[in-house]
């Protein structure tokens, strides 16, 4: 029994997932993460390098890697002990100027061999700002529909208000769980309950329910 077998077994037992948070700089990756973890988001400076955070979500342990926007940090994606299960690509919906760049970057990212098979969640962030691009426009600018190598979904959200974050992450977690932890997968209603216990201090349950209804209408 090699060490890596043991680690893989442990990972499966504790229902762990590794999630990469990526995107251009100033897209709001760290803010989303802090909001999800229920931390203060009033003071966030550009992420230099990266942070690893553990979040319990829907009965799963997410090891979230918040990697800075710089290209030089790409080497982090590959690691001896773990593989990447999901990529969360955060887009600044109000940054029309760089949307094409953003698409380029995303293409390059999906070509990475070490991310093969990872689930892709695109967060169209900053939807609360005036002049934000619509979900359809972003989808087409990023030409998401031509992606065949990864399971993907795009969700609108606002890190500032917290709208849309939970449904998006729920989708990604559910998707990964469906691939990796089928038999141990928890039913949605059950996960709801567990999550409230797990991410205590997160978005208030009531507010989230309201937000969800609203976002549900906007999410394609």
């Amino acid at each position, binding site marked *: *029994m090699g*060490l890596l077998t*043991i*680690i*893989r077994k*442990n990972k*499966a037992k504790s229902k762990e997932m590794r999630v990469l948070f990526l995107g251009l700089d100033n897209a709001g990756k760290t803010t989303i993460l802090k909001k999800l973890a229920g931390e203060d988001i009033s003071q966030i400076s550009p992420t*230099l*390098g*990266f*942070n*690893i955070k*553990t979040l319990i979500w829907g009965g799963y342990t997410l090891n979230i*890697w918040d990697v800075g926007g710089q290209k*030089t*940090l790409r*080497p*982090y994606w*590959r*690691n*001896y*002990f*773990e593989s990447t299960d999901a990529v969360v690509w955060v887009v600044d919906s109000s940054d029309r100027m760089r949307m094409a760049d953003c698409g380029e970057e995303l293409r390059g990212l999906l070509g990475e061999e070490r991310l*093969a*098979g*990872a689930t892709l969640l695109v967060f169209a962030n900053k939807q609360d700002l005036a002049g934000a691009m619509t*979900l359809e426009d972003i*989808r087409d600018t990023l030409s*998401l*529909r031509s*992606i*065949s*190598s*990864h*399971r*993907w*979904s*795009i*969700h609108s959200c606002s890190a500032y208000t917290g709208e849309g974050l939970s*449904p998006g992450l729920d*989708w990604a977690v559910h998707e990964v769980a*469906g*691939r*990796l*932890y*089928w*038999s141990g997968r928890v039913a949605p209603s059950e996960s709801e309950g567990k999550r409230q216990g797990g991410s205590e201090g997160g978005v208030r349950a009531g507010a989230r329910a309201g937000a969800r209804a609203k976002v*549900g*209408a906007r*999410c*394609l």
Partner: protein
Amino acid sequence: MARNLEDDTDPTYTHFSHRTEFLAHLADFLSLDLSHDPSESEQEDEEGLVRAMGAILDHYLPLPGLLDPSLDEIVPPLMTALSSSLGRLSESQHVSPSRLFRLGRVINWVVKVRGWKAIVPHFPSSISHLPILVSLLSPPTSPSTSSTPITPHHPLISSQAAWELRAVLLLWLALLLTVPFSLSALGAPSPLPPAAFQIDLPSYHRLFPTELAPLGERVVLLALQLLHRPGKEGAYAALVLARIYSRTDAVVGLSGFLEWAAEELHEGEREGEANFVASLLELLALLPGMLPPKYLGEIHAFTEERLLPHLRGGRTAASSGLVRKLAVKARGRWWIARLSGADMAVGLEDALDDFMSGLSDKDTIVRYSSAKYLARITGLLPAELSEQIVLATVGLFSGTEDEPVIETSFGTVVDPGGSPIGGMMGFGGAETVRGEARWHGVCLAVAEMARRGLLKHEAIGEAVKWALTFDLRRASHSIGANVRDAAAYVLWSLSRACPPDELRPYAEDMATGMISVACFDREVGVRRAASAAYQEGVGRLGLYPEGIDVLAKTDFYSVSVRRMAFTLAAPAVALHRVYRDRMRSHLHHITLRHWDTVMRTLGATALKDLLELGTKEDMDDSITREIIELSSLDAASAHGALAALEQILTTLQEADPRRRKIVSSLSTVRPAALVSQQAADMLQTACHLLTAALDGDVIAESSTQTLLNQFIETTMRRREAECHEAVTRVFGRLSELRACGPEVIKLVGDLKSMRAAQRQSAALALGAIRYEHCPDVTEKVVHALLSQLEPEVKADVETRRYAIRSLASIACQTDSNEALLGNPDSFRRIVASLLACLSDYTTDQRGDVGSWIRVAALRALGGVVGCAAGLPPATALALVDQENFERVIAGTVRLGVEKLEPVRAASAGALRDLRLVHARAVWDWEGEECLKAEMSDGEDAFRYLDQQAWFASGMPLLKTRYRADLVAGLVLTIGSQVESVSRLALTPFTDYLLGPDADGVLGGVLADVEGLMGGNVTSNRVFVPCLTTLLRIVQAGVISRGVSEVLGDTLTKILSLACRGIPTIKSIERITASMKLVIAMLCAPTTPRVVLDKAVDAVPLFLGHRFPRTSITRDLAADSDHVFLDAHAEAMDMSRADELARRTDALTVRRTALSGSYGARRRIGRQL
């Protein structure tokens, strides 16, 4: 709505991507009729089908969970098929045994890959299956007859081949036993005496002191006998028992069972008990989680007082890692069940002690189990207790009280210390390599504890300290890479589970230690593990100095290739002082002392790079440290010091006093080290060091000469080519600094030494010396080296090869006025001698060693002639006249198309050299544009060229004066026995001959070949390839073109040469080649008449050859003759054709009649 934007294409690698394929196989498999026996061919197909399904399943072994979504499509249909066959079986209808077994095999395969716990829920749980399973697994009720012996189960499922089927049935039975109704409500199976289960009456009473429901009793009885079976059968029988005894209506029977098991152990033979013991332990591991707590005591008593004492001192546990592992598991599970309910209990300490000693078991599975349960139990205990256990576990790193670990002053381990005596639980299984297993096990345990957040305060510091230590050198290897791998896992786990504040005091130590390992470990797995641990720390803790920057330089890929890790990653990280210092000491302590030479050498390079970034003090410190190591008792260490000092020297300016210090320190190398196993490496490195060190100051030092004498003399006696090269460089450097007359005289003398090694290095060294300061000895040297090339001197191949190199180098040496040092006559003699070397085809047991000479001569000629070309034309022509130049080109062309690629490469290199110096301006060079290869990167580039294109580029030479030489080279390649080599040259050759530019060339080519054959009648090395070449070009249809009387004449001559002396020739190869050529000529439709006649005349030679082995030859000859007769019947003189046909037929008839006896063949031969 949210789903609208999702794609619905399936990525292939993240789910059960073979689903469709697998289900198709499954459908095929399920369509088979189990009531019919398959035919033999069907049998084969079905086996293939099972293997195909198994292969797909095995593919998912690493991530079996991916199968889960499809299990509902896989398992239930298989189980339906199984249950219907079982139904038929219980009604005594026919079921095909082989098909039924295969069904069992497929189900068991699924179970094996995914694990039984995930599969069983997909089994049918209808209670109606229970009686069928029970009756099939029980012995048959009908009395046995002589033709049907007693079987333990239904006869059909009792065979050895049905074990997978039985395993599946047991799993199913175990599932059905969870039925919530009382067993007595389920009816009784048809009665059988206990004897049918090999149970005698006393045992029966022991087993069932109180009455059990008949069904329960039957299940127990049938499972008991299966406990003795190996593997899964035993394990699943244990599962069945666990299920039955954990039922409220059967738990009363448990004490009886334990009583029986104890008795069985006591009475049974120890030799064959391993399976039984393993099954019992499986059962004991299952029970604690299933039984009501009040029964825990009962099984504890059995384990601790009956089973474990029974195993102690015996061979069962000592020789089986599985038994020891299961013992750990059974006890671990028991304690976890126990502690979940109550608090601290008696006996726990002993158990923990046993788990701790299990960490040093020789088998990994035992170590891992011990680590796992140790950590899990620790996690259940109150904090103050768990802290003690953690500390005690970490303490195991340092050996036992009697035999503690021994460290050097700088903290690396010299001796790992002892492990607990007697092994875990007194079972034996102690580690075989001291320290290795224990450290690995303790690392696993500590990592498990760290992962659970159990490491606190000082335990963290201790764990970190140890985790960075494990690079202990053994005689020829280090303590396992797996220990260091696991140590990195400890650090990784710590980074994940410990709050930053706890780790703060150790952060720098951890960071620098991990980076040193990530850059400088020998194994890629360990480097990557260290890199990952570092990465985790940077991301989670934010405590590591310059973490982000360093991480980018030492990521997964940067450390993947060892050389890159040493030469790129390490210097990049070392920009930061904090890492540089730690890395430097890592190099001094571990890498430069490593058992692997490559590691020491790389370490030396890395040290140089680090020192260039550091201060003068660092440099002085490193020099001092390594000088001390020079006198080490350990030769590997001393070699590391030499390598390091050599690298350091290359960075020191001339006249730096430290250079002298280093050189004089060489005298401290222990003489014994220079005859050790490391001697070749050491001497080679010492020579490099001297080469780098020699300068005006150093050479003026009186002690230097003594050192030089000592090292040069010793190195020259070594056999290794690397040593020869190294010592040569010393001479080269020395002669740049001062006149070397006495050395040269000595070297010339050494050419006559008794030692081959000394002769060889002398020959090489003479070429490295600069004769500028001692021109008067040059002639003497040239003479001595030339004489080495004379056949009568019988110099060995290596010496000759070196002599050639040296001669070329001497011939080209100039004085300060750019005038050649040697006299023109010597130059001409050197050229002549080199030309002769182009035809060296010496062979010995190593093969064509002559090729080394040819390669060396080609390179030498390229250099020497090139050097002449650089002189004024008149001088150049005086040294190499036109005639000799043409000889050079002729030889080079010939070798440029020969069959060995290195020789061709050398030839291409020589031609390139000559083009570069514009030889054409001095001499007439016909065909200069031919055989041109792009190889600006040197000769190595040649092997990447398209070789066929290379040959093609030489073909125009067929129209030049070099035709004969080209042909001489080509026949060796085209005539090669290796088909692929032959094709390289044959295709371009025939293409050219059949192409538009080949007018009139063929005649010349054939004449050349004939000439070659004529000159080599006694040399098969050339003669046979000539024959084969002719055969191949005839078969390619080249002769059909331009057939003329002239050609006919040549071909006739060739044929007579080919057949000359055939009856007396012994080489089968040659006879075959000649024969094939004759046949080919006969068969080619355009062969001129004269040639045909000649060929016909030759046929009997082969038909009647006296060699029995050539009967194949004759077969071939006879067959081919008929072909030929068809082709030529009309054109030929009919009487001759008839005659030939008659002979051939007669031969065929007689051969058949006489069935090939040797004497008969002889007679036929005479008649013909």
